[in-house]
């Protein structure tokens, strides 16, 4: 493009500019896509895979004698856990309220189904209370009042003479139906 041309024909210049610009924009976008695309894939990786896991096994909660009283007992459950790149041995993966119900031992998750706070036991009321948004739960886990969309989640429990064991699971919060998290 000569100087004369530049001065003489602005229309020609504009035309060439538009043509080259759209080509350049396409090539440039393709170049940027070579790194932006893979970067997005890395960003979205947790959508495609599990990034942490605990074994889906019964975890020891304690001797049966521990749960002989009338009040619910809170037990911490320990297991090996994979968290991203780490494998940690015997860390707390969760807790459960264990109590007798009609002569049978049952376990409830301590996670409030509303927004995931830890549920406390109020010995005066004989009920469970979520301290965050005041959801009250009966001893069988059903909601009595407050914003929780469902009752406390029951956990599978296995007991023999020696040991009480619980299969710990997490469920989605904020929904009425129990769904695995």
């Amino acid at each position: 493009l000569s100087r004369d041309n530049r001065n003489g024909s602005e229309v020609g210049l504009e035309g060439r500019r538009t043509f080259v610009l759209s080509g350049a924009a396409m090539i440039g976008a393709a170049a940027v896509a070579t790194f932006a695309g893979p970067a997005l894939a890395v960003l979205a990786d947790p959508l495609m895979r599990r990034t942490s896991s605990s074994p889906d096994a019964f975890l020891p909660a304690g001797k049966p004698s521990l749960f002989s009283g009338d009040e619910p007992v809170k037990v911490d459950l320990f297991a090996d856990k994979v968290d991203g790149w780490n494998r940690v041995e015997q860390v707390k993966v969760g807790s459960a309220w264990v109590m007798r119900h009609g002569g049978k031992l049952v376990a409830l998750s301590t996670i409030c189904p509303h927004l995931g706070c830890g549920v406390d036991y109020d010995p005066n009321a004989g009920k469970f209370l979520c301290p965050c948004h005041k959801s009250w739960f009966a001893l069988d886990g059903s909601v009595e009042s407050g914003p929780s969309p469902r009752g406390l989640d029951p956990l599978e429990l296995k007991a023999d003479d020696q040991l009480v064991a619980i299969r710990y699971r997490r469920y989605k919060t904020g929904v009425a139906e129990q769904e695995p998290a």
Partner: protein
Amino acid sequence: MRWVWAWIEERTGWAAAVRGVFDREYTGGAGIRHAFPAVLVYLFVQQALLGVTLSLFYSPSASDAWASTAYLTDQVTMGWFVRGLHYHGASAFVVVSGLYVLSLAASAAYRRPHELEWFAALAMVGLSLAFGLTGNPLPWDQQGFWSIQVELGIVESTPGGAAIRNVVQGGDEMGNLSVLRLFTIHAFVLPIVFGALLAFAIGQRRRHGVTPPLGLSEHEAARRTVRYAPSQLFVDVLAIAITSAALVAGTIATHGSELYAPADPVEAFQARPEWYFLALYKLRALFEGPLEPIATMVAPGAVAAFLITAPFIERAKGRAGRTLVVVGLGLVMTGVVGLTGWSIVADRGDEDYQKALAQAHSQAQRARELAFKGVHPQGGTAVFWNDPDFKVKLLFKEHCLGCHTVEGFGGDEAPELTDYSSRQWLRGLIRDPNQPRYFGNTKHDDMDAYPEDSVSDEQLTATVEYIVSLMGDPAMAVNPELASTGKTLWEDELECNSCHEVKPGESGDGPNLSGHGSKAWVARVIRDSSRADLFGEAAEMPTFADKLTDEEIDQLAAYVVSLREPSESK
């Protein structure tokens, strides 16, 4: 839609600004020589975005860095590619900023009033190297750890360098603080400085214009003048596309960036710096001992001083000045290229280095496979705890090493287990069982020594072959003829059978040798070596039958057997 643009334009004035950029004049015409700042902008954006992406998975601590990098590289979707592209992008930074300096030098674009752009370009070369220096150790693998170790050692040897090292390293020793500091420099400090310099250089070009090629008359330069868009813009985009394509191709061809085994401060490693430091590396190798500062300080310092003062050298010397600068630059380039090439060729031909490299690669692969199970939070090298062998070695250390020696470590109260029950081991035993290496420090002292005057070398070889044949280990190929000669010697001449039975179950004064040295035999010894058909009542070795599980005993036995180098029969 149009009114939205108009609304924005009225407030920002961006369209006018872009038009201003497009209308800028390129005296002397467009060309690849003017494209390097644009490519640097592209690379800067690429590296910044990839760096942020990497930091989604990277944990900058000595205990987490390796494991998180392994996770990113081997498990995260496209993680290897993002890391590889970032790694090769760093090389491209060095190349393109170097080319930028050369392009300025070619048209003498360091002359008044372009000095500051020249300085900024030089500083960008230095910063590209600093990016590499601080980025390569971040995975905290063997390569990265030992490289930064050496580099900080060089820093320390300069005047005032000890303090710099301490600050960069975060103390006297490499550790969590070192990784975090290197990361902070790499991810925050350098990008900000580099970005500012790049913007400054581009601003200088805008203010003073680009320099036309030398030897172009003023009239000719004016005649060839173009506007940025479309002419130079087209070249810029083309250069970016070529860079990008080369990086993608390089990343795929090299499967991203290597990740070596986790940093282990007690395991030496033949570290080589990145290619852009090989010239300095080779130079340092040339000046060993007291002359080392020539390579680490004097030569690089002189080159830097020459490049920085080039504009003034030329002005002071007039026409000869240009020649001086060109010749000086030529010498520097020849030196850098020559030393780099020499270093690469020398390593290619260095068998020891190639062997160490192959070993490093296989160890890296092993570590990365083990990392899939998750790495213990104690640190990168904890990945080897996932190795089943590791558990066995730990068991061995706990229960056996107090009395038995393996490869120079351990007690001498019981027989050494290095190369246990190999032909060589058996020969030594028969020649003199009472050496401390064998049964010298035990209560087993009934067996006679068989020195050369009682058993010839050939006879010994045959006897050993017979014992090996009793082992029944397929890894130990037996020469049947030799073994049968040995059997005759065993029974008739040496009368070994007066103490050692060879039929399973029978007991004599010495251990029954059927299956001797096999995994099953070793396991029986570990269970209870005082059985009548083994070492009998004189055995001092503890009984492990009730201390260890069957599985552990089997693993230990397999480990002891694995200490034996399978050798050919002579």
